[in-house]
């Protein structure tokens, strides 16, 4: 089965997924920059702002498995459309919040709506992209978050100054809704094409997972292994992003401006490494990905160790630039392996389960931080 089932070429499908994930990332990251203005306007204290920033993750984690299952059951197109329209509406509503309670409710539902997007996107890749190109598609899909990470501070600082935090969320919500409409119209299977390709089952009409399929998935070792890898990788990723800056400033006496430049390195190199990782993984012989994953796990551990123990700032820069390479390989393997090796009928559920591993990491870190 390929992208022509939707009347589109696979490149267009991957581009749409990239745009959707970019909007999803922006919606998620912008609040980190707007929170100071929000707190001031709504007169919130530190614990309330912490709650606002973290409540999203609860809804997001909660929807991972149901979102994947819904995509398997009802098709990726419908779930992606509902998800992107849903999270765009609630991004817009963030700008209309009038109290702490309303903001918490809006951000929680925003998390619920966005939670089904990633597994449904993975499902779309699994049913529309040829197997030998799925790692590349997944790498491009994932790289959108790196781009969002670079674009969010630039957009936020400009928009916060020009139009304020309320309009910033409304504008991003409208942009997301427009991308959502693109999904609905461009991913619509063409009736004429359906007739011509009647020998092959259509994506939206393909058999949903049978009763008991989810139980089989729970007993599948690859899902648990990748879930553990996802948890561990997420922990390292979060750790290096959050503890490194403090360490470099407090312990190594690094200038804040130099730190700002250093922080851009993983974001810029990350995008290139994602695309490279996807290309390499599609070339690796099936079954050998595990060696690449294992080597990258050791590689990332070494980079973290070397980065913290480097004698010079140049050393820190070198190791910090190499770390995204291992990180990109790990995340592309973690999310492309299930859609390459598991049956298409359970692709969404499998990716939802594996991504939940990363979200459990987030919840546990927040608990540890609080304690």
């Amino acid at each position: 089965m390929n992208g022509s089932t939707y009347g589109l070429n696979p490149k267009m499908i991957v581009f749409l997924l990239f745009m959707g994930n970019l909007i999803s990332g922006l919606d998620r990251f912008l609040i980190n920059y707007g929170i100071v203005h929000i707190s001031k306007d709504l007169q919130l204290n530190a614990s309330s702002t912490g709650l606002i920033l973290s409540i999203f993750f609860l809804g997001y984690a909660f929807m991972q498995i149901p979102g994947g299952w819904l995509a398997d059951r009802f098709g990726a197109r419908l779930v992606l459309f509902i998800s992107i329209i849903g999270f765009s509406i609630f991004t817009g509503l963030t700008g209309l919040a009038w109290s702490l309670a309303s903001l918490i409710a809006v951000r929680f539902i925003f998390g619920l709506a966005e939670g089904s997007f990633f597994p449904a996107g993975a499902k779309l890749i699994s049913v529309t992209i040829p197997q030998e190109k799925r790692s590349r598609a997944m790498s491009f899909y994932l790289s959108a978050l790196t781009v969002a990470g670079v674009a969010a501070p630039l957009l936020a600082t400009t928009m916060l100054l020009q139009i304020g935090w309320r309009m910033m969320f409304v504008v991003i919500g409208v942009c997301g809704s427009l991308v959502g409409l693109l999904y609905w119209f461009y991913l619509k299977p063409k009736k004429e094409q359906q007739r011509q390709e009647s020998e092959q089952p259509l994506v939206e009409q393909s058999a949903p997972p049978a009763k008991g399929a989810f139980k089989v998935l729970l007993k599948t070792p690859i899902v648990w292994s990748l879930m553990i890898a996802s948890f561990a990788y997420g922990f390292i990723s979060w750790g290096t992003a959050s503890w490194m800056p403090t360490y470099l400033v407090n312990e190594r006496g690094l200038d804040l401006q130099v730190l700002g430049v250093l922080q851009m390195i993983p974001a810029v190199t990350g995008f290139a490494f994602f695309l490279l990782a996807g290309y390499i993984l599609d070339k690796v012989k099936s079954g050998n990905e595990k060696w690449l994953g294992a080597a990258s796990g050791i590689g990332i551990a070494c980079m973290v160790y070397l980065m913290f123990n480097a004698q010079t700032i140049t050393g820190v820069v070198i190791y910090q630039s190499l770390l995204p390479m291992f990180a990109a390989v790990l995340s592309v393997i973690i999310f492309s392996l299930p859609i390459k090796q598991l049956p298409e009928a359970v692709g969404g559920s499998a990716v939802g389960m594996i991504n939940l591993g990363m979200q459990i990491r987030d919840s546990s870190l927040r608990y540890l931080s609080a304690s």
Partner: protein
Amino acid sequence: MIDLFNGSYSGVVWLLVAFGIVCCLAFLKLNSRKENAPDETVETGIPASR
């Protein structure tokens, strides 16, 4: 979080290194391709992807 290690950054670093090793072990636990994926069965009706 750093307080859990009495303000020691090296404790945090070793924790991250440990997670890298966990990640490596999780991949090493994977079997070869065929053993990873469930085959099509009458009970589940999951079609094999290829």
